[in-house]
Each structure stands twice: as C-alpha cells, then as structure tokens.
C-alpha cells in the first residue's frame, strides 16, 4: 500500500505542469475557468497544441501516433489538465472511434482515419442513440441496405453531441432483422456532407444546443466504410463503451467544481457573514468533499489495477454512479450558493468578448447553467439505473 506517486510519476507530473504552464493559452483557460462558451475553433486550437507535443492521442498506443501512456500517466494528465482549466479533449474521434479502428478497422481505415483524427482534419460525432433506442441501444432501427458497392442508409439518430461541428459520424445501423436484436447491427462510417444527411439542433434546458438530431434519408455510403464484419457491430459498440468509460468518475471535474464552489461560498454573503461559515451550508459542502476524497481513492484503485493489466469491469459502473452523483451534488450546491442571481438568464454574457454585462456576479449564470446541463451525467453513457443493473448482474450475480 502506497498512496503516493513514484518518483517517475512525479517527474511526469512536473513535465505535464511545465507544458501546461508554457503552452496552454490563458485565453482558453480563462474561458474554461469562468464558464464561457467554447467555440469549435477553441477546441481545435487546443487539439493542435497537444498534437504538436504528441499528447493528443492520450489513450492511444505509440504505434498509432499516441502517447503510449499507462493508466496512471493518463490519470495524471487528466488531473493536471483539468486543474489548469484546459479545454477538454473532444472524445468522439480520440477516445471512441480511434480505439475501435485500431482493434477492428482495416489497415486502409487505420491509415486513412487515425492521422486525420490527430490532425483535426475530421471532426467525428457519435451516431448511437435513436428516438426509440436510448438505454436499450440494441433497439436501433436505422437501416443500411447493401446495393452493389454501397449501403443505402435510412433512419434518425439523436443526442448527437457537437454534431453541428462534425463532418463525419460513426453509426450503429441495422443490416439484419434475423436473430436477437444485437446480432443484426453493423458499424458504419458516414460522411456528413453526403446528400440526405440533415443535422437539426436540440436546445437543452440550459439554453445551449450542445446536441442534435441527425436525419439520414437514402444516404449512399461506400461499402468500404463498414468497420469489421457486417452484423458484428454490437461487439465493436461495446468495446467503444469500455473506452468511453475511461475517466468515468470525473474526479478532476469534481475537484475543480468543488474549488469553484468553495471560492463562490467565500464571496457570497449570508446574514453578514461569508456563506461558507453558515453551518448548514458548511455541512453539505463537507459531506460532498468527504465523499469525493473516498471516491478519488476508489478511482485510483481502479487505475492501479488497470495499470497492472486488469481490465476494468463492472467497477466502472460503480464509479459512474458515485462520480455523477457527487458532481451533480456539487452543481446543486453551487446553484444554491449564488442565491437570487441564479434567476437572471442573460445568455449573451457567456460569449467571449461580449459587451453585455452579467446581472450580479459573473460566476452566477455559469453555475446555474452547469447545474441544468449536468443533469445529463446520470442519464448518458448508460443511465445510472442501467449501471445498477450491470452491478447487480456482474458483481452481485443476482
């Protein structure tokens, strides 16, 4: 038992810190820290900076141009970039599609797409969920019918995050209605500029159009865009989900959010004293901090096991539930901490360089909108109820 990093790991952490100090533009970290809207160009700028250093393919092996880092190094990188308020790495190409192509894609697909992901030539989005297939993903209805050397795709995808920026989408499509629902699914790569693809924004309760509907009508997709074998897409989809679950606990996000809450609670006044001295507020803050201290160690236990070669199993379901519950609690406390200034909704104040002043303190609106936005955490990536089913089946064997 040793709860501290080794000397090598400490040296690595220092290297990451130095890099962030030198290379993370203060314009970007300032926007992240203050909860301003990030643009497509902001994300691409950060991706390019990381790529230049060879640090964009965080989860990728070196042979594909990735870092080759182990689980502990990835954790340290995540911890440090979050602490420094770097923009997040957009995960769809890097953490989701990339690993699938490396394991199941053809050599041609790997050679073509992987460098384009690193170079930000393509912006990928995820075509999984459908109106009738949320937690029950195997119920996808979008069809792909083989005609000569093409597939003709018809259907509708939804909750497509940042689809408005994407030029490519990886889709689960139905190529067979035989057998179990899982057996007729294929994994297809689709160019969003193809005729018949239409993207419609969905405005969420935080007022932002972070997600989209993607309509596919008679879209012609070259057969070479099939990943792996026809009707084996469920296997690839599940493999992707295990990668989606890296950093599922969100310890870095929770830690940063807790620091922000502590700062706000020190500035807000309640009955002539800082809110943080109010015993009722202080008790709630302390309780979530204590939960986070334990969860961070649960997370490290999983990471240490992964670094020792153990595949993450249903433990990630426990981390997903606990991690999202903690983050949502911090968001709720932060919303309450800003008091009446949770009410004014002056959306323009969230844009960089906006000449519209916020009403009340500048941290109030981002805090409130983050609360609404992060209600998604316990829904996406397998809702927390689906995770409980996984725990019940895989660990408790009920």
């Amino acid at each position, binding site marked *: *038992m*040793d*709860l*501290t*990093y*080794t000397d090598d*790991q400490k040296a690595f952490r220092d290297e990451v810190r130095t890099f962030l100090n030198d290379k993370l533009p203060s314009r970007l970290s300032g926007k992240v820290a203050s909860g301003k809207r990030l643009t497509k160009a902001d994300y691409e700028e950060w991706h390019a900076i990381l790529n230049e250093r060879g640090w964009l393919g965080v989860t990728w092996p070196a042979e594909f141009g990735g870092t080759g880092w182990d689980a*502990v190094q990835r954790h340290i990188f995540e911890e440090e970039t979050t602490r420094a308020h770097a923009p997040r790495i957009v995960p769809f190409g890097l953490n989701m599609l990339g690993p699938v192509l490396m394991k199941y894609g053809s050599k041609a697909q790997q050679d073509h797409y992987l460098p384009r992901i690193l170079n930000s030539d393509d912006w990928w989005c995820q075509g999984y969920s459908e109106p009738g297939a949320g937690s029950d993903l195997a119920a996808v209805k979008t069809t792909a019918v083989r005609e000569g050397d093409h597939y003709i795709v018809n259907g509708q995808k939804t909750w497509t995050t940042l689809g408005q920026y994407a030029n490519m989408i990886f889709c689960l499509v139905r190529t067979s209605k035989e057998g179990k629902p899982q057996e007729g699914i294929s994994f297809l790569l689709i160019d969003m500029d193809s005729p018949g693809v239409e993207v419609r924004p969905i405005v969420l309760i935080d007022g932002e159009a972070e997600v989209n509907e993607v309509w596919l009508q008679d879209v012609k997709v070259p057969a070479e865009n099939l990943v792996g074998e026809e009707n084996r897409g469920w296997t690839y989809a599940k493999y992707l989900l295990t990668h989606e679950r890296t950093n599922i606990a969100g310890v870095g996000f929770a830690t940063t959010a807790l620091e922000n809450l502590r700062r706000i609670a020190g500035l807000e006044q309640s009955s002539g004293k800082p809110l943080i001295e109010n*015993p009722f507020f*202080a*008790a709630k803050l*302390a*309780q979530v*901090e*204590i*939960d986070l*201290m*334990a*969860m*961070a*160690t*649960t997370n*490290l*236990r999983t*990471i*240490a*096991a992964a670094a020792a070669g153990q595949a993450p199993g249903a*433990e990630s379901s*426990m981390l997903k*539930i*606990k991690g999202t519950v903690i983050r949502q609690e911090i968001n709720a406390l932060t919303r309450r901490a800003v008091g009446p200034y949770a009410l004014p909704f002056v959306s323009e104040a969230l844009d960089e360089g906006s000449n519209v002043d916020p009403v009340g303190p500048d941290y109030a609106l981002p805090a409130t909108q983050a609360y609404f936005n992060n209600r998604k955490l316990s829904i996406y990536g397998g809702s927390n*109820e689906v*995770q*409980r*089913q996984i*725990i*019940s089946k895989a*660990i*408790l*064997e*009920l």
Partner: protein
Amino acid sequence: MNFQLTEERQMLQDSLRRYLADTVSPEMLAEATESEAGHSETLWSGLAEMGVIGALFSEHDGGFGGAGFDLAVVFEETGRAGAFEPLVASGVLAGGLIAARGSEAQKARVEDIIGGAILGFAHSEPGARYDLDHVETKATKDGAGWRLDGRKTVVEHAGAAEAFVVSARTGGETRDAEGISLFLVPADAPGLTTRDYPLNGGGRAGEVTLEGVSLPGDALIGAEGDAFPAIEEAAARATCAICAEALGLMESIRALTVDYLKQRKQFGQPIGKFQALQHRMADVLIEIEQARSAVINLAGHLAADRVTRERHVSATKNLIGRAGRLVVEEAIQLHGGIGMTEEYALGHLAKRLTMVDHRFGDTDHHLERFIRLSAA
C-alpha cells in the same frame, strides 16, 4: 501508487481470516458476552499466539507492524468475524499509549500485552460525549505519589483488565488540552471500583470510579500535563481500527444479504430477481467500496502531520458512520422478518456495526470536526 498488501500483510490477512472462520461461531460470541471475562478467552489466547496483538506494535516497541495498514488488515478480519476481543482497548489504546510515552520500566507492560495481558484505557467521562479533552478526573500530588479522584464511563473491557491507563487532570480546566496526564493504575488498587455490564453489539464495559486512589510517583506515564497529543493520536489509531472493523462487518453483512436474496423465494422466484431490491443492493455495494477507500485513506495518513491525519480521521469516521447505517438498515429491510431475529447471524453484525457510530465520535461529531479542521 500501489494498493496491494505487502507479502507479510497478505499472509497475516489470510491466516487470520482462516483462523477466525474456523474458530468463531454465533454461539461462541453470545457466550463470550455473558461470560465474566466479557470476551472469549479461547479466541484471545489464539490471537496472542498467532502474533495478532504484536501486529499492532512497531518493531521498535517489540511488535512487528504498527502501521495504519497493519491495523486495517487485522481489524477488517476481526470485523468480518464479528469478534470483540480487547484488541483496541488493550493493544491500540493502553498499549499504544504506554509504548508512546512510558518509561523503560513501564514499557515492559507492552511485552505483556503482546503476550495477552489485558489493560484498559479509562479516559471518557460522563458528560464528555466524544470530546477527548473533557477530563475532570483529578490527580493531586500526595507526597512523592499521586491521588486520583473521578469517574470514567463506558470503559471497554474494564472487567477483564488487570490494569488501566487512566487520564487525569494535573492542571487546567475541564476542557483544556493542556494539563492532562496519564497514570498506570492496577485494577485492584484500593479506591478503584468497577460496575461491569454487557454492551449492545457484544462484549462488556464498565463504569470505573476512582475515590482517593493512591499511586506511587512512578505511576505517571510520560511527563506531567502534556498527554493530550498522545491521546489524540491513540484515538486516531483506534478510529482507524474500528473503521476497518466496520468495513469487515459490512463485507459479512453484504455476503449474508446477497445469499439471502438468491435463496429466499416469494411470488414464485428468488427475491433477488426483483429490480427494486437489486438496485438497493447495488447502492449498498457502492457505499461499501467508498468505505473501503475511506479506510485506506485513513490508514495511509496515520503517520502524517496532525491536521492532515485528523482531517482523515474525521472524514473517514463520518463516511463510515453514514455507510454503516445504510448497510445495516438496508440489510435488515432486504432480509425482511428474519433480519429482525436475535437468532439469525445478521442481528449481531448489524448491532455491532451500528455501535461503531457510538465509539470515538459519531457521524455528526466528525462532520463538524472536519469543517473545523478544514477551516484551520
């Protein structure tokens, strides 16, 4: 970063788990509470022979362990078995304080303790609740010796102890950290009386009254008036021990409950097939993992500076209190009627786990303390 036990600790865990599984039974525990000793003399001598008491002390003090993770390993296993031997009272507290502050002559007692001698720690007083600095018991100079007067409450294993480490005030006011001293007092000292009684969750304790107890000068353990930091550190180690014990209790309760969910049939199927129960059990499991991490955090910071250590004491004890309550209440509910019976194995484990919240500060006490330590 490494969460594996060392080879030695792994061996200790394996052999202790095997020994306790072979030795402890619900009948044995029930008899132990009813017995005059208030614990199982068979089990106690077995633990001493295995070197389990020695694992609570550092090599410097004559043991072969003494670190936070040694405590965690030992007490997770005793908790798993539902045992209540005087390991905390005699080993961690009385023995720990003598090892930390005793003279060479007094330290001979540590060897006795490792061999199975039982000492008690008579510290808590009526009205003190969980405040470690609340000491009213007076020690007054009496020629070359001392005279002790006061009352000590819920002194664990008082009836079995051959001697006590007693805290008493040699200066300052009731709730001052300054002015507290420690004394080694034989259980048969004239003026010392014990009212002995059984405890919820197993084992026995006593109310210890000191009326004009005369002690020689060399009964003082360490210097006069500055014992509080050592008491606080001993309490931190004891908290680590009982939090690990709570974790072991949780693991046993979890195993019993999952088994029961698979066996018990209602409405024509095992009740574990019902989603309402599955989700509750999944939440119990998540909190037990949190509890395990909390124990690791505390065990890993017992040797840290005072504020860091004590923040972890309070964080861990708070979390264990909350998780323990959830585990107990859900386990009883998921079992249904059988979980309410004295006879079924769950009852003892559930009560013992509940009582962890009443030793060394409860959930609220430690939440408030965590806030104070965080502001400092």
